[in-house]
């Protein structure tokens, strides 16, 4: 006979580690979320692919004219920019709501909190996987050469996941306590997309405004994946920048999480 057990973690690390180990649980919940969203639709989760493809088909040719950049260079940059930005943006905004959305779970059994952070991230990774498919025809259309550099996108993606995970922890804790931080976050993200080379080329930043790139963690997050997929090396400051940013966020997450992990349940 199967036996139920819910172990109560003695420490913040314990909670984090246990939640992380429950891979089957958070992965099931994440894929359930996706399946649930597209249930009873003909294409199912393929709608994710279709909608981003439609958007790119409309924006690519037009914006390359507007920014006066050859389509062959502009299109892959835009496609990856929009896909990756969508991933980062949605993950952080949904992270804000993570604990509130999981309150029925959290109030009836002592689940590790970090499990739900992973669930939100995993759900968005599934979405990302559906949308990255769109890059394949774009790359073929723009005849992006296949080179070993593209393998660098794999560590880039992993680093991006780690970074988003630690950011999500802080966001989730703070937004559960202060409900309007989620709105602040949404507003900020709307600003960030315009000062980050998502829609435009990093190369069109004039030299005097380079700080916009050096000091912008969101650019680093995008660049470590986008550049390799285009067969280019990331900017030399992107990796160090991303690692520093992730470390800073990890420290913040540790402080916030270990201090308020026990209170989260009372804030729901």
């Amino acid at each position, binding site marked *: *006979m*199967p*036996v*139920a*057990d*819910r172990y*109560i973690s003695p420490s913040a690390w314990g909670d984090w580690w246990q939640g992380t180990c429950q891979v*089957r*649980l958070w992965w*099931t919940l994440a894929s*359930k979320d996706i399946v*649930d969203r597209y*249930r*009873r639709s003909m294409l199912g989760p393929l709608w994710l692919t279709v909608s981003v493809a439609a958007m790119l088909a409309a924006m690519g040719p037009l914006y390359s004219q507007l920014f006066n950049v050859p389509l062959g260079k502009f299109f892959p940059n835009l496609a990856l920019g929009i896909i990756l930005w969508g991933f980062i943006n949605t993950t952080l905004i949904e992270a804000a709501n993570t604990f509130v959305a999981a309150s*029925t*779970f*959290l*109030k*009836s*059994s*002592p689940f590790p909190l970090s499990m739900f952070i992973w669930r939100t991230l995993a759900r968005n990774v599934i979405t990302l996987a559906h949308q990255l498919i769109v890059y394949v025809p774009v790359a073929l259309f723009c005849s992006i050469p296949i080179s070993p550099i593209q393998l660098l996108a794999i560590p880039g993606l992993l680093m991006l996941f780690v970074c988003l995970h630690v950011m999500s922890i802080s966001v989730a804790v703070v937004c559960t*306590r*202060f*409900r*309007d*931080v989620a709105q*602040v976050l949404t507003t900020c993200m709307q600003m960030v997309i315009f000062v980050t080379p998502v829609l435009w080329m990093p190369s069109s930043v004039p030299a005097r405004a380079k700080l916009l790139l050096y000091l912008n963690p969101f650019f680093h997050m995008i660049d470590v994946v986008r550049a390799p997929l285009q067969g280019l090396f990331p900017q030399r400051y992107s990796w160090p920048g991303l690692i520093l940013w992730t470390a800073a966020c990890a420290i913040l997450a540790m402080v916030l999480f270990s201090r308020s992990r*026990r*209170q989260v*349940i*009372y*804030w729901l």
Partner: protein
Amino acid sequence: MASLSLTNACIDYPVFGAHATSLKRTVVAAVTGGMIGRETGVTTIHALQDINLTLRKGDRLGIMGHNGAGKTTLLRTLAGVYPPTKGRYRRQGSLSSLIDPMLGVEMEFSGYENIRLCGILKGLTPQEITTLTPEIAEFSGLGEYLDMPVRTYSTGMLMRLAFSIATTVRADILIMDEWLSVGDASFRQKSEQRIRDVVDAAGILVLASQSRHLIEKECNRLVELAHGRIVKDEPIGPAPDAAPAAAASPAAAASPVAATQPAPVQKLQPGVEPPSPPKIQPALEPQPAGRG
């Protein structure tokens, strides 16, 4: 060796009014020294105070108290959901919380998908779920309806499914908010037997209820709460082994005595009729006929 204890445990809840969760008010309050942001003053509810409770194997604890006395809070604290703000919580042994039997049930999913999902939530492996699914399906008596989305179910059918899944798992410590008993007459008899097995298998039972009758029947210790404090803690009841033994024997379920026993619980029976939507009727027919 199952054990569960609370030592000098207090639960103090902050209650954020509609305004207090807002960052602006907190900032304004901080800046103005609390002149404007008076709403920020967070009300604290002392939900539980100085709770001392030690449960060992064999303990069958009934919790009583008026509405708002802290029963649910105490249950959640014992389940490990609320960490005590003061004092200590210790637990040994596996724990199964039936506080919310509907936990994880997803309306758009079919019955079978829900069995899988809830199974995983309860910590079962996919193999265990595959092995258990026929048994759960059989017990629920929902037949072909298990292929339908759960949103098409009546309340009674939904409770049957949730109950069948929730009671599959055994644990050393079992926590229940009211006695679980669901469905129409025939299913209730079956479910009584089933919950009895789960309770008997558990080393420790914690049961919150409004019904003194139920607690006297099922428990050997009574704790009464008032305003977040334990006001009474005493051993109760007839021999604790007498009642379970009588009901646990398979014959008891079929005997007329068992059938005429008063159903102790009012709370979880939404006055349910046998599921009888017209379309897939044949699959369900043997069910009501078998026991009726």
